[in-house]
């Protein structure tokens, strides 16, 4: 017996939103996938592959996979550059959408290289007048985005996270010193160049330091959570750099190294053999005349010392999404004291206080890619149960 297909709105086109949409479509549910930026894949689509001689399970390739699934699935209607304006509930949900005004977070160029059908880039031109060499098939920003009303039987909130703004930690000099970068910057540098290069002069750095817990586990900021991704991404990128350049001298400044993923202990043991670990979080960073960075920290003998590095990577963590306050009002569901949509139900970490609204991915708190995928699958499963879609 076939019943009328149900429709679900998924808010957010990052890895969690893509996964939730795809899993729902596999069970014959129609999906409206709303994404405020011009491209799909969120933060995760910009990450680099961190394999050395073998895969280290960073999950970056799973995002590409999921993207391909979604853009080729007719049951999923993708609305890029679109924002939520209002959500009413009268039996079904009625969602008012509008063209997004800030579609290009973190993108400096006047052409956005996002990703769309068949994994090919979707070039969106923000300003036609300033863009001299528009690529073939480029879309003008004015032409995308949707205004209007969409009805849905359930909502999955997959609005993601905001990377910690490293500028808040002033003494690290992020944006002031060009060779102080964040983990996300490093992902993109490796992605673009196949290797690490210094932003200031494009040379290969020999001496690199990673500072962990930037913006996470920080009492002074009130960020009392572990971001659950930074140890893994820092160590994995450090190993990728080491694999390409065995002479690279890499130091990890840390509080506690966290296990993330299957068999992490074995990976950590390998890291201990070729990376230097210092259990101290440096505070001050100063530039040197040779375009290097002097880092002040306290060593094992509790002596304050300065050490010079070519490149400093700040392992920024996961903080609540910038739209969380607004979305919580639209949906009538509460944020936890940290600002995430964390579910209190131990047996269902996707549930909210509102029937028919479910959380997926980092909107509900820090998660890595595999955990976001699993959580989004769970959200899709709970929606199916809620809608009573039978086999």
């Amino acid at each position, binding site marked *: 017996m076939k019943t009328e297909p149900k429709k679900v709105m998924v808010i957010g086109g990052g890895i969690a939103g893509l996964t939730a949409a795809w899993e729902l479509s*596999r*069970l014959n549910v129609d999906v409206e996938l709303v994404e405020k930026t011009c491209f799909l894949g969120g933060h995760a*689509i910009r*990450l*680099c*592959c961190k*394999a050395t*001689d*073998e*895969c280290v*399970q960073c*999950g*970056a*390739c*799973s995002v*590409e*996979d999921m993207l*391909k699934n979604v853009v080729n699935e007719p049951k999923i209607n993708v609305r890029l550059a679109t924002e939520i304006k209002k959500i009413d509930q009268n039996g079904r949900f009625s969602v008012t959408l509008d063209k997004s005004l800030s579609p290009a977070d973190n993108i400096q160029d006047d052409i956005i*290289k996002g990703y769309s059908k*068949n*994994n*090919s*880039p979707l070039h969106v031109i923000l300003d036609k007048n300033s863009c001299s060499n528009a690529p073939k098939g480029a879309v003008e920003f004015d032409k995308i985005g949707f205004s209007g009303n969409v009805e849905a039987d359930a909502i999955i909130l997959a609005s993601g996270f905001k990377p910690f703004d490293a500028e808040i930690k002033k003494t690290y000099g992020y944006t002031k010193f060009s060779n102080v970068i964040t983990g996300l910057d490093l992902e993109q540098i490796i*992605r673009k160049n*196949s290797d690490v290069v210094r932003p200031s002069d494009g040379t290969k750095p020999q001496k690199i330091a990673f500072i962990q817990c930037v913006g996470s586990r920080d*009492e002074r900021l009130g960020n*009392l*959570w*572990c971001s*659950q991704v930074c*140890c893994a991404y820092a160590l994995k990128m450090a190993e990728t750099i080491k694999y390409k350049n065995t002479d690279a001298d890499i130091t990890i400044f840390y*509080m*506690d*190294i*966290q*296990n*993330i993923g*299957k*068999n992490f202990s074995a990976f*950590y043991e390998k890291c201990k053999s070729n990376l230097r670990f210092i*259990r101290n979080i440096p505070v001050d960073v100063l530039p040197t005349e040779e375009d290097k960075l002097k880092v002040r920290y306290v060593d094992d003998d*509790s002596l304050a010392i300065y050490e010079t590095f070519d490149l400093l990577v700040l392992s920024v963590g996961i903080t609540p999404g910038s739209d969380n306050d607004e979305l919580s009002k639209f949906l009538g569901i509460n944020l936890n004291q940290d600002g995430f949509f*964390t579910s209190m139900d*131990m*047996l*269902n*970490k*996707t549930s909210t206080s509102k029937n028919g609204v479910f959380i997926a991915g980092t909107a509900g*708190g820090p998660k890595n890619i*595999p955990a976001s*995928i*699993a959580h989004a*699958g*769970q959200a*899709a*499963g*709970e929606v*199916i149960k809620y809608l009573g879609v*039978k*086999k």
Partner: protein
Amino acid sequence: MTNNINADMEKIAVNTDVLVIGGGFTGINTASEIADSGYKVVIIEEGANIGDQKTPGFLIGFNEKDRNRLQGIVDKVVADDQIKILTQTRLSGAKGVPGNFSISLSKNGDIIEQKFGAVVIATELSVKNLNEKYGLSLSKNVLAQSQFEELLNTNKNKLINKTVVFLAGLGQDGNPLVTERVMRSVFKLNEIDNCSTYVYTDNLKVAADGLEKLYKETRDKGTIYFKLKESPNTNSDGTNVSFHDPILKCEISVVPDIIVVEEALSADLLNETLADFLQIDLGPLGFLQKNNVHRFPVRSNREGIFVVGAARDLNNLPMSCTDIANTVLEVKILLEDGKKIVSKNKAVIDTGKCTFCLTCYRCCPHSAIFWDKDNKPVISPIACQGCGICASECPMDAIQIGEFNDTDIIKKIKSKIKPGNKEPCIIAFCCQNSALEAGLMADAFNLQLPAGLQIIKVPCAGKIDVDYIMNTFIEGADGVIVMACREGNCKSETGNIYANWRVNDVHRMLDEAGIEKERLCFVTLASNMGKEFSSIVIDMETKIKELGLSPLNK
């Protein structure tokens, strides 16, 4: 889920009963959810009861209401006539393919045979004492974490005025499950009059929701955490714990009334037997899943066999619930309403050519090949992932893979090579899961590519025959690149490994034929490596230009 059957499709019947292995909370919950989706379920449990929680600390963080809900699920499962419960029962054999597994169960020595469409493994964690790692013997004042939890629950008043020392993360590389148990105990001790608490640890593993807060709360209430690189010194009766503090440059001693020693949580020993019977991969540390991102969260290397919660990793119950929901989705998608539309020509064996050598059976990473009543090999269209490893390994070329059949691929090779070209002709065999995507990306982002580059798509690098590569050279290609997924990232586990072996074989043949080996290379890359794709093919072009065109390029 489509109803449009074309000529290449057929409708087949599948068994929709599901076997759940493990009667702990994860297994019970899985059974309940699957039964709610309309399938019949059999739960087997080795112990005498279901719903016994074998892993201590598993319900840490659960309140009374949650516990009652769990008991409610147990009661519901017992009462549900869609669910059959077999206690004191273990798996004793398994045959068949997804949609039609023949399972043997052994209950007190009696053998029960039953068919199932899918199997879910929900084994639990096993617990080991680690006191020996700290040079301690368990005694009245040296307790394992579980013993201490018991004491806290039953005789809290005994802990008034006591000094309690926790040793964790020094006898093993810790994990958030262990940390949470320690911190929950400490949290309760903070409420007891005049009870002092010390935690000795290495890396404090707080990578789970709420643990950093718990850490702060317990510190605020007076618990002292010492982060050391090695275990502190303890005297053998556990009456003194000390270490040298490098910052204060002195010995710090604590005289505890009780020492609580962490426990190791590890994979169920049953996993190994199950992996054996069900022909699924055993992953790191005895858990039932390879460390392969394409399996996450709940897939095994075999279609229709799912691994949830602690069966696949160090997972607590909330994490297991995430797995359960994912499993229910997978089961629904697999079994549907008992009728499935499948492709007829995904992989087809020509039994006329087949010499029954068993090569395909042995090399299939998905255990998709079985022997039918007439003792002929059959490939299950549900289990088969279409990777083509079997087709390329078959010494008789008796297996053909749908759109990637030998005739079509050889035709494609011929059509892509135009002899007499001045630009070096480079053929890249690209796995559709990785290199093909990377190539598309390189092209779309206008990265540099050789003028004479031609791409041939394969379902998996494991489908790149020695014959294909040789044919490519015979047709006059100047260079050949075999592009596979990174090691450990192949969706068919071993496709990239087979491809590498075959390239080594062809290198030997080229050597004998007097063709430079450098004209053929094997590389691995990921789908998002557009830039690397470009560098690899450009490097090949440069190399070919140095070598000159192939002697066979006429």
